[in-house]
């Protein structure tokens, strides 16, 4: 049993040049064991060598892949339109792409390793190391994980507005922060122009229109004497269209103010029923024009909401006038007020043709009204429901509609009801203050 590992002798020959001699002379058992050990040793060495080689190759491939990924990543960062700046948790700049170079006027080579505060105006310039330290200690976030608008400082000291998004990453236990910056100087300029335009619309368009409408109002009201019937009809036409134009301007301004968050709300505890009654009274002319009656089906006294009376009247007026405009002549618009689970709900039900399926999803969006022929017929701006929705949401409420099976639509408005016990003793004091006058 000279060989116990199961290979035929000849198989060992290429690896054992001494074998023929050994075969010829006969081997002692010690020699045989040495030979086998040598063979095994050689195999092990070869196997280990092979494994090391493979490992080396794997590592090389991984490194090549990593290098390729880094190149791709850097290429991506380098071609980004937005500035990308990566800093470590001490604020030292690790990466600075060409867009950042163009934005700030610093070359990558000169800024890598320097503190990010260099790119900030005061007070953040002095405070930024503190922000980072606080984040390391407490996890407090200032700009992390959200978009913010901040001021940045160019190499020449000039300041400019940027939109900033910062994300945090952890690589090999080290914290890095990646900031994406977009110069919003142009956007700010456009916003300013838009504001100026709106101020112009508000003043320059309204002023002459006020005079036109006022004059026509005086003539149709008989303040300038009786007009022949034909002239009176034409003047009435001009007057009602000047009113419509004024409403359009007001709606455009409201929509803009709501969009930019500039609409002021003066919230105070309000009795709801008188407000609804007032809105119905204000809508009387529209109801009369369309030969529609408005009446309560469910009445709820003593219910109060926390709201801005002027704005809520605007919403109710809009819903009521829509209901009247779309109702068949001689029909009734039903108003129901109910209360459930701390919320008060106003339903306004018309018997109109209903809302076309394709219109429903965009009914509350800007200019979401039906087709233009319909708009012309009913004289709306297409902004009323958009404005109403925004106002109701600012009151913590909800607005919507329920299409009826046969004919008609119910628009509803839900607002948080004030609790009659709390608002007496502990409720919020009214925001509305009467200023004493002499």
């Amino acid at each position: 049993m000279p060989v116990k590992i199961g290979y035929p002798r000849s198989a060992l020959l290429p690896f054992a040049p001494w074998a023929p001699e050994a075969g010829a002379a006969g081997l002692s058992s010690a020699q045989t064991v040495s030979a086998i050990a040598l063979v095994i040793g050689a195999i092990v060495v070869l196997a280990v060598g092979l494994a090391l080689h493979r490992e080396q190759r794997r590592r090389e491939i991984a490194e090549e892949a990593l290098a390729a990924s880094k190149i791709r990543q850097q290429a991506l960062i380098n071609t980004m339109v937005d500035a990308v700046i990566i800093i470590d948790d001490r604020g030292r700049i690790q990466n600075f792409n060409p867009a950042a170079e163009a934005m700030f006027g610093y070359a990558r080579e000169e800024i890598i390793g320097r503190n990010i505060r260099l790119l900030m105006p005061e007070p953040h310039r002095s405070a930024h190391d503190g922000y980072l330290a606080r984040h390391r200690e407490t996890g407090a976030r200032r700009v992390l994980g959200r978009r913010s608008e901040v001021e940045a400082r160019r190499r020449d000291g000039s300041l400019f507005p940027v939109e900033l998004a910062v994300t945090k990453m952890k690589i090999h236990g080290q914290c890095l922060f990646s900031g994406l910056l977009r110069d919003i100087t142009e956007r700010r300029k456009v916003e300013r122009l838009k504001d100026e335009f709106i101020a112009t619309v508000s003043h320059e368009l309204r002023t002459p229109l006020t005079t036109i409408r006022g004059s026509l109002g005086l003539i149709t009201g008989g303040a300038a004497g009786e007009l022949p019937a034909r002239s009176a009809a034409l003047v009435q036409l001009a007057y009602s269209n000047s009113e419509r134009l004024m409403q359009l301007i007001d709606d455009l301004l409201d929509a803009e103010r709501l969009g930019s968050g500039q609409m002021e709300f003066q919230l105070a505890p309000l009795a709801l029923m008188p407000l609804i009654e007032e809105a119905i009274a204000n809508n009387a002319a529209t109801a009369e024009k369309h030969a529609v009656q408005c009446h309560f089906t469910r009445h709820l006294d003593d219910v109060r909401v926390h709201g801005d009376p002027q704005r809520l009247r605007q919403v109710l007026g809009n819903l009521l006038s829509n209901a009247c405009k779309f109702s068949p002549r001689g029909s009734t618009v039903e108003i129901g007020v109910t209360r459930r689970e701390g919320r008060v709900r106003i339903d306004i039900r018309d018997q109109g043709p209903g809302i076309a399926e394709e219109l429903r999803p965009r009914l509350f969006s800007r200019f979401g009204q039906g087709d233009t022929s319909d708009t012309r017929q009913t004289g709306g701006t297409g902004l009323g429901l958009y404005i109403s929705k925004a106002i109701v949401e600012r009151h913590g409420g909800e607005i919507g509609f329920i299409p009826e099976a046969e004919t008609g639509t119910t628009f509803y408005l839900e607002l948080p009801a004030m609790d009659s016990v709390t608002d007496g003793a502990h409720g919020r004091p009214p925001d509305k203050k009467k200023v004493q006058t002499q």
Partner: protein
Amino acid sequence: MSNIELQRILFVEDEADIQAVAQVALEAVGGFTVAICSSGEEALQTAEAFAPQLILSDVMMPGMDGPATLAALRRLPGMADTPAIFMTAKVLPHEVQQLRASGAIEVIAKPFDPMSLAQQIKDIWRRHHA
């Protein structure tokens, strides 16, 4: 006080068109006697002789604005307590509060309805004297 009838209104407005509409609204519809001034300076010259019971003034005017005009008018003899109403397109709640704080008893929003302007003024007058 409550039965004093409002007759004489000093109206300060720089826009000629609005002056014309308001004049018809106040004189023809409301039956008031109106002195129309195109500026704060003109109002100061007119006020003493006219002795208005009520000052009705625009807010944004070149030169002296509405509140400055009112402050100056108040320094004239016999005008310290003359009630004043401002008319303005700027009717955001804080703007109205500022105008009231500057001494107006009420603020009327522009554009005003000329057919109901006189009634609106009569209602404010009655409330003020109630």
